[in-house]
C-alpha cells in the first residue's frame, strides 16, 4: 500500500510531485486532521475489494513531507491499514521524512508504532547545491537525522541523493557520498536532476538563470555514485537504487515486479487486476469525495496484454537481475549482437539466457528497452 501525504512546508524548485504548501491550500484543507480522510479511503478500499484475502506486505508513506503530520497521525494511518487489511508478519513499513521535521522522540514513536524503515531526502551535502534546489535543511541535518533513526532502532534507513544540479562539482558529489556512507545507512537512491515542465526550476533554466543539467556530466556522476557506493558495500539492484544485501526496498521492488498495490491519498496511483487508476489531485476535492461517500478516483485504464508486457519489460530491464531474453518481444539475434558489441548488456548473463544491463547499459536503459520492445 502506498499512502500519499500532499503537504510540504515549502516548495523545492525541482519538484513536480502532487504537494502543496500551507499558503497554496489556505483554509480549505486542515493538515492536522487530514489523516482522517486517508483513513476514510483505507476503509473505502477494504469495502471495494472485500473479497481479497491478501495481507499487506509493504507500506510506503510518501509525499510531500509525511512527517509534517506528526508521529501520531502516521501511526494511526498504519493502524488503520492493520485493522482493515492485516499486515504480513515481516511487513516492510516505510515513511519518508524531512530532516528538518524529525527528532528522536518522533522517530521512537514511529518505531514503536510499527514502522520499519525511514527514507530521508538528503539530496546533497553542498550548501550551494541545496540552495539551487531550494532545500531548507542544513547540510548536516540529513546525516544527523539518519543517525537518529538508527539510534531509534530503525535497521533500515535510506538517503536520497540528487546529482547533476547546475553548479555542482564532482567534489560536491564525492563529499555527499562520503557523508552518506558515514551515516551508516543501508540504502541509497540517487537520481539525475530532471528539469520537469512547469516547475520553478524549469522557468529559471528557460530564463537562462541556471544552466541546463548536462547529460554527459550526469553520466560521469552516475559512475562516481556507483563506484563509491559499490566500494562501500552497497550494490545496485535497480538503475537508481543501491543497497546492502537484504536491504533492498521491497515496496519499490513490488512496483518493478508488477505486483498489485493500492494508492491512498490525493493523486495516488493504484494497480489491481491489470487495471491502473489514479485519484483526484487536490486534497480538498479528495477529502470532499470521501466525506460524501464517493470514490476519490479520477480516472483509470485497463491495460491490454501488449501494454502489460511493455511495462514488465520497461521495469524489469532496470533491475540487476534483468530479464529472460525469451520474454522480450522485440528481441532478435541482430539486436542482441548489437547490444553485446556496444557493451550494454552483460555477456555472461546473456550466455545464460538473461538480459542484464552493464554499467554503460544502465545509462542507456531507455534505448535498450526501446530496442527490445516490438
Amino acid at each position, binding site marked *: 500500500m*502506498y499512502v500519499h501525504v500532499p503537504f510540504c512546508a515549502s516548495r523545492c524548485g525541482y519538484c513536480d510531485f502532487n504537494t502543496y504548501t500551507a499558503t497554496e491550500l489556505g483554509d480549505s484543507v486542515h493538515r492536522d486532521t487530514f489523516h482522517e480522510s486517508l483513513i476514510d479511503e483505507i476503509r473505502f478500499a477494504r469495502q471495494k475489494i472485500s473479497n481479497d484475502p491478501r495481507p499487506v506486505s509493504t507500506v510506503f508513506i510518501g509525499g510531500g513531507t509525511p512527517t509534517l503530520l506528526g508521529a501520531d497521525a502516521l501511526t494511526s494511518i498504519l493502524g488503520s491499514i492493520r485493522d482493515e487489511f492485516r499486515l504480513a508478519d515481516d511487513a516492510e513499513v516505510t515513511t519518508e521524512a524531512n530532516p528538518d521535521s524529525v527528532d528522536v522522540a518522533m522517530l521512537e514513536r514511529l518505531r514503536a508504532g510499527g514502522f520499519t524503515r525511514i527514507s530521508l531526502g538528503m539530496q546533497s551535502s553542498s550548501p550551494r547545491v541545496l540552495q539551487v534546489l531550494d532545500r531548507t535543511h542544513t547540510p548536516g541535518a540529513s546525516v544527523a537525522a539518519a543517525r537518529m533513526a538508527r539510534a531509534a532502532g530503525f535497521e533500515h534507513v535510506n538517503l536520497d541523493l540528487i546529482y547533476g544540479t547546475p553548479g555542482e562539482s564532482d567534489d560536491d558529489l564525492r563529499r555527499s557520498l562520503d557523508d552518506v556512507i558515514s551515516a551508516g545507512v543501508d540504502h541509497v537512491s540517487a*537520481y*539525475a536532476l*530532471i528539469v520537469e515542465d512547469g516547475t520553478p526550476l524549469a522557468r529559471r533554466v528557460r530564463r537562462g538563470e541556471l544552466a541546463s543539467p548536462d*547529460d*554527459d556530466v*550526469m*553520466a560521469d556522476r*552516475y559512475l562516481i555514485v556507483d563506484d563509491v557506493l559499490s566500494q562501500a558495500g552497497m550494490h545496485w539492484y535497480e*538503475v*537508481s537504487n543501491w543497497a546492502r544485501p537484504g536491504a533492498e526496498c521491497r515496496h*519499490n521492488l513490488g*512496483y*518493478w515486479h508488477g505486483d498489485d*498495490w493500492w*494508492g491512498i491519498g490525493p*493523486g*495516488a*496511483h*493504484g*494497480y489491481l487486476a491489470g487495471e*491502473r487508476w*489514479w485519484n483526484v489531485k487536490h486534497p480538498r476535492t479528495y477529502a470532499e469525495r470521501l466525506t460524501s461517500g464517493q470514490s476519490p478516483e479520477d480516472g483509470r*485504464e485497463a491495460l491490454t496484454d501488449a*501494454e502489460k508486457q*511493455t*511495462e514488465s519489460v*520497461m*521495469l524489469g530491464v*532496470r533491475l540487476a537481475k534483468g530479464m529472460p531474453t525469451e520474454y522480450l518481444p522485440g528481441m532478435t539475434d541482430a539486436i542482441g549482437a548489437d547490444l553485446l558489441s*556496444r557493451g550494454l548488456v552483460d555477456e555472461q548473463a546473456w550466455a545464460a539466457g538473461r538480459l542484464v544491463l552493464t554499467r*554503460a547499459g*544502465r*545509462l*542507456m*536503459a*531507455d*534505448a535498450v*528497452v*526501446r530496442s527490445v*520492445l516490438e
Partner: protein
Amino acid sequence: MPVNAPTPKPGATDPSVIRNFCIIAHIDHGKSTLADRMLQQTGVVDDRAMRAQYLDRMDIERERGITIKSQAVRLPYRAVDGADYVLNMIDTPGHVDFTYEVSRSLAACEGAVLLVDAAQGIEAQTLANLYLALENDLTIIPVLNKIDLPAAQPEKYAAELAHIIGCSPDDVLLVSAKTGIGVGELLEEIVASIPAPVGDASAPARAMIFDSVYDTYRGVVTYVRVIDGHISKRERIQMMSTGAVHELLEVGVISPEPVPAAGLGVGEVGYLITGVKDVRQSRVGDTVTSERSGATEALGGYQDPKPMVFSGLYPIDGSDYPELRDALDKLKLNDAALVYEPETSLALGFGFRCGFLGLLHMEIVRERLEREANLDLISTAPNVIYRVVLDDDKEIVVTNPSEFPTQKVSRIYEPIVKSTIILPSEFVGTVMELCQQRRGTLLGMDYLSEDRVEMRYTLPLAEIVFDFFDALKSRTRGYASLDYELTGEQDADLVKVDILLHGDPVDAFSAIVHRDKAMAYGTMMTSKLKELIPRQQFEVPIQAAIGSRVITRETIRAIRKDVLAKCYGGDISRKRKLLEKQKEGKKRMKMVGRVEVPQEAFVAALSTTEPPKK
C-alpha cells in the same frame, strides 16, 4: 452613371469606339481598387454587388493582395460628349516571375494606365513593365493614385513620372481610387488619348491569346484579343502553334460576369470556351484562327514558358506520394508554366523535380499543394539550371545538383539576369556592397529624382534565388524594389558541395555554389545539422566536401545517457506512454545510413535555403 444605355454589342462593335488598355502598377499601389471604381462608374457593377477587389479570383491572391491571373473586363462607357464607347480593361500580373504573361497582355492593348502611388513613387517592377509597354508602342497615361493620403507628394512624383516618360508633369492625372476623385477624368482621358484598335475585318481571323484559365465547371477559358477578321461561335478554330483544331462552344465578353455573344470582331477582347480541360492547349501568346480559310501567318511574340528555378518537392510521409502526384496533375491544368518530373532522393524518398518561373511561382505552387491537397511537403533548396561542358566537349544540362557530373568538367555556365533596383539614395552604398557580395556587376545608375536612384546590375540568377530579396529589403529598411530578367549565361567557377553524414552523402543537401562561397555554405550546413540532428548511439561526423576533399567538419558526440532516473508506481503509466510515443516517433525518422534524422531536421536544414516570404 449610364444605365440601360444602348451599348455596342460584342461582335458588332465598330473598332473606332473601342479602347483597349491595361493598368501597370506595383502590387499595392491600388490597381484593384481603381479597377473596382471603374467597374462601378461605368455601371457594370452596381453598388450593392460591389465587392472589394472584385477582379481577383484566387484565395491566395486575395490573401496576399496580389493579382496573378489576368482578367479582361468590357466596360461600356458613355463619354461626356454623349458618344458610347467600349473600354476593355485588361488586368495584368505585377510580379517579375510572370513577365511573359505581362508582355502578352500588353500586346493585347493600345494603351496603358501607369498607376503609381503618390506617397511611394514608381517601383522597379512597374518601371520594368513600363519600359515593356513603351517598347510595344503603347500610349501611356500617367496617373498618381492615393492622393487622398496625407503622405502623398503629387508634385514630386508627377515630376518623376514626367521625367521617365518624357511628358509634362501637368499631364499626370491625380486620382484617388478609394474616394473616386479623378476617376471620371481618367475615363475621359482613356477615350481621348488611347488610339482605337486597327485591323483588317475582311482578312482571315487572327486573335492573340493573352491568358487562359481553368474553370472546374467550364473547362479552360481562353482570353483573346482579336487582331484581324472575326471569331464566330460554332466555328471551328485552330491553335496556330500546334495546329490543333477545336469546336467553339461559347464566345463572349466579361462584363464583369461572362456574357455569351455571337462572336468577336476586330479590336475586341473576350473569351472562348472550347471544352478542353488543359490550359496547355490554350497557350498564352498563341494565335487563334479559323479552321476554314484560316490565317497563314501567326502573330508574333509567342514563347514557350521557360522555368528558371527548380526545386525537389517531397511528401513528408512517403505514402502521400500518389496524392502529391495527383495534386500536381490537377494544378498543371491551370498552370501552363509548371513543369515537373518524378525524382528520387536517397534522403527524402520519392518526389518530383519541379520547374517554376521564379520564386513567387514556386511559393504559390507549394502553398496550393499544401492547402488544397492537404499535403505536408519538404522542398529542397531552389536551384537554377546549369550548362556543364565536360572535358570531352560533351554538354549536360543540370537541373538537380545531384546530377552534377563526376567526370572532369571543363566549363560551367550559369544563367545571369539583368536586375533593376530602385531605392532611396541613402542606401546606395549598402546595396552596392550586397550586389558585389553576390557576384554582381554594375551596369549603371540613374537618379530618378533627388533622393531616388535606379541601379542596374548583372547578377547570377543563383544568387537571387537564395535570399537576395530579403537582404535587399533589410538593408534598405524595406524601401528598395527589385525586378530582373534573364539575359544570358556566364562561365563561372562553380563547384558542387556535398554534405556527408557519417560518411554518407545526403543528396538533398548538395548544392552548386561559387568556389569562393563553398566554405561558407559548408560551414553553414554542417553547424546547422549539428544542432538539428539528435545525438546517436555512436559518434557522427558531419562533413562538407567538394568531390573527395573535405572542406569543413563538425562532430556530434555519441549519447551516453538515455535513461529515466525514477520509475515508481505513479510514474509507470506516463513512462509507458512516453515509450509508445517514442516508438511512433521513430517511424518519422529518416535513416541516412545508420544515422536517424527526424523529419523536422530535414525541413529545418533545408529551410534556411528556402525563398523569402514575400
